[in-house]
């Protein structure tokens, strides 16, 4: 059984997987003048949670589902999830970011849980998508599918929220209050994602956000930026 401490440890932004280097698209949204204050940050976070948050959490939950039993065909299941997540990530910049974050998380995971099923991840040259690695890592830590989805959904909120404090000079207390206000939505998203993991891969959530794609490609062309994404 997992302990609550393992859940907290994996959800912690200080877990050494480089999450602090990413703003979840917020840096580009700020530069475009679309996020300027607490109210627009809140709308950004709500939209991100319902789109990238839901999709990432569902794929983490689905990878966890593939990892838990000693099933034959786990590698096939993960390869299928990898291709399905590619098809949900239209922007090449976002595919690259997800795989880069997957590599960083995998380095930590291999060092901490050397017996986890990471060898079954697809051997894509640029790494596996972050939610797939997260699902395997959480399974190795003994977390439940719902806990896995919660960590994924929560991560899409906290990274962008703390980037908001740095990019806009917002009051950190008020940003935390905003996250408290989104906690129910985060839990609801995680529950939806965990349930969706029972569906066949092509039916997993595919919530799209046109501006996330557009912002990501604009951001990728900048020569100077504070965050990697």
């Amino acid at each position, binding site marked *: 059984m997992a302990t609550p401490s393992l859940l907290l440890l994996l959800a912690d932004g200080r877990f050494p997987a480089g999450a602090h280097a990413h703003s979840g698209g917020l840096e580009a949204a700020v530069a475009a003048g679309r996020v300027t204050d607490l109210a627009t940050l809140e709308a950004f976070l*709500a939209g991100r949670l319902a789109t990238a948050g839901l999709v990432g959490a569902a794929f983490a939950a689905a990878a966890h589902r593939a990892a838990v039993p000693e099933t034959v065909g786990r590698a096939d299941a993960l390869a299928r999830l990898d291709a399905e997540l590619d*098809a949900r990530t239209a922007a090449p910049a976002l595919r690259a970011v997800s795989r880069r974050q997957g590599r960083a998380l995998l380095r930590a995971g291999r060092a901490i849980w050397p017996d986890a099923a990471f060898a079954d991840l697809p051997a894509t040259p640029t790494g596996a998508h972050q939610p797939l690695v997260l699902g395997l890592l959480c399974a190795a830590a003994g977390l439940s599918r719902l806990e896995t989805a919660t960590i994924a959904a929560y991560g899409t909120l906290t990274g962008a929220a703390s980037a908001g404090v740095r990019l806009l000079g917002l009051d950190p207390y008020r940003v935390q209050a905003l996250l408290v206000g989104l906690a129910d939505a985060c839990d609801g998203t995680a529950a939806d994602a965990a349930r969706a993991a029972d569906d066949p891969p092509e039916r997993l959530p*595919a*919530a799209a956000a046109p*501006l996330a794609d*557009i912002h990501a490609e604009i951001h990728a062309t900048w020569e100077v930026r504070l965050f990697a994404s």
Partner: protein
Amino acid sequence: MRAFARLVARADGRGGTALVELRGETPLLLRQTPADGGVATVHIVGGAAGPLAGDDLRLEIEVGPGAAVRVRSVAASIALPGRPGAVSRVAVRAVVHAGATLHWLPEQLVAAAGCAHLAESRIDLAAGASLRWRDELICGRYGEVPGGAVVHTQVDYAGRPLLRQSLAVGPQAPGWAGPAVLGGAPATGSLLVVDPSRPTAPPTAEGSVARLPLAGGPATLWTATAPDAHTLRAHLTV
């Protein structure tokens, strides 16, 4: 209302395309219009008044090897409220065989106030098939807050997932009008171009339009938001 329509096209062996099946039911009627350079052209007519919540409209398209079909509509479709609690649904299922081409270029879908609409498209492309698929969504009639609408697109190429996207707007879609999703733009859409004969161009983005080469096949997605339908169409005409 429930309606079913079906379009089957085959290469006629003389460089053109024959429509071997073309049938529909009110309010989903198909009319063949003059061909354009060997491409059979079909207009969807009668879509202007609705769909209303409760309607269930299904369209099947099959384009045989070497055939080419262009589908348009005569007017925007306006998703409107109907029976309380009911959802309107328009499901399009297209199969495009090797060497065949499908252009799906209908007018906009307008999500009116109070609507509850689901547009579901599922497209299976064989290896070597070509596609041009445009979806345009207008969130509310002029100055109006839209009801709920979901535009779901699922495309496979050569048995591999190529594109899955589900855009949700309206009161049930948290943050949809916010800066992570549409940024207050009332018009949004995408154009998917699958062309196995040409290499895909690298990504670009400017303002509120991006060109995105996809991972799962020889395909590019243009995605855009816009202040109005006219600007959106200009962004999605390439």
